């Protein structure tokens, strides 16, 4: 069990990053969709903060783990039970501190705070980072696979 955990711990880190990248992509898509909506306040995700929260939740892997958004806990009564990781919940940002509001760059009369140029740039940036995380995962999966097959 421990050896397997050693094998997949790096994969676990990347998978958390991937989930957060997907969340950020969604938030940026919402901002771009609402670029013409009066009164819409642009959201932004502090990736560093979100990643720290995601990693902090997995650090305390005892007999019970709690998911931040749902406050549900899964207890393990047998040594062979596998504890559920917080990353399994559908939404990791339910009550997160990392999800804030973007700083307004050019005040507009209709109260909309979306800076379309910034959002487009962030969207492209995030897409590339998502893809690079995917490549890391693929590389590590190949490494594990070659270790298992011994070729």
């Amino acid at each position, binding site marked *: 069990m421990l050896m397997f955990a050693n094998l997949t711990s790096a994969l676990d880190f990347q998978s958390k990053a991937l989930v957060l990248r997907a969340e950020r*992509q969604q938030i940026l898509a919402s901002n771009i969709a609402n670029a013409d909506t009066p009164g819409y306040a642009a959201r932004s995700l502090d990736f560093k903060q979100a990643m720290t929260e995601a990693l902090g939740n997995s650090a305390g892997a005892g007999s019970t783990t709690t998911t931040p958004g749902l406050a549900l806990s899964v207890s393990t009564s047998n040594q062979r039970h596998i504890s559920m990781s917080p990353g399994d919940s559908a939404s990791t940002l339910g009550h997160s501190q990392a999800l804030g509001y973007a700083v307004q760059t050019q005040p507009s009369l209709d109260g909309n705070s979306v800076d379309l140029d910034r959002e487009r740039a962030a969207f492209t940036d995030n897409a590339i980072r998502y893809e690079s995380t995917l490549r890391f995962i693929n590389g590590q999966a190949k490494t594990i696979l070659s270790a298992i097959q011994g070729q």
Partner: protein
Amino acid sequence: MSMFSIFNVSGSAIGAQSQRLNVVASNLANADAVAGPDGKGYKGRQLMFETMPMGPDGTAGVRVTGVKESNEPLRKIHNPSHPAADAQGYVTQSNVNPVEEMVNMISASRSYQNNVEVMNTAKSLLLKTLQMGQ
């Protein structure tokens, strides 16, 4: 949910923007319309956009809450020879400003394009996610 909700978010925005293009088209088509015998000319229409929450974590689409008619006065043009002219020789036309409508049209089509691009990016990312581990 995963990135699949991007399609709902951008889809709602595309729907709203295409409805806006429809309204612009109808405004431009009626820009030179002359009021009938009842004196009621065409009034320019504008859409009202509203944010529509789509999930627990900041995901939000767009919804059209209604169509509003412009309150600007109808244009009156002095043209006594026109068959629709009133007793003083004035013809009542719509209150549509074609320049404003053209600007509106460009804005709507750019926003539409932006959201299509967002959907394409999300699609290619999801396709690459499907190939994970291969």
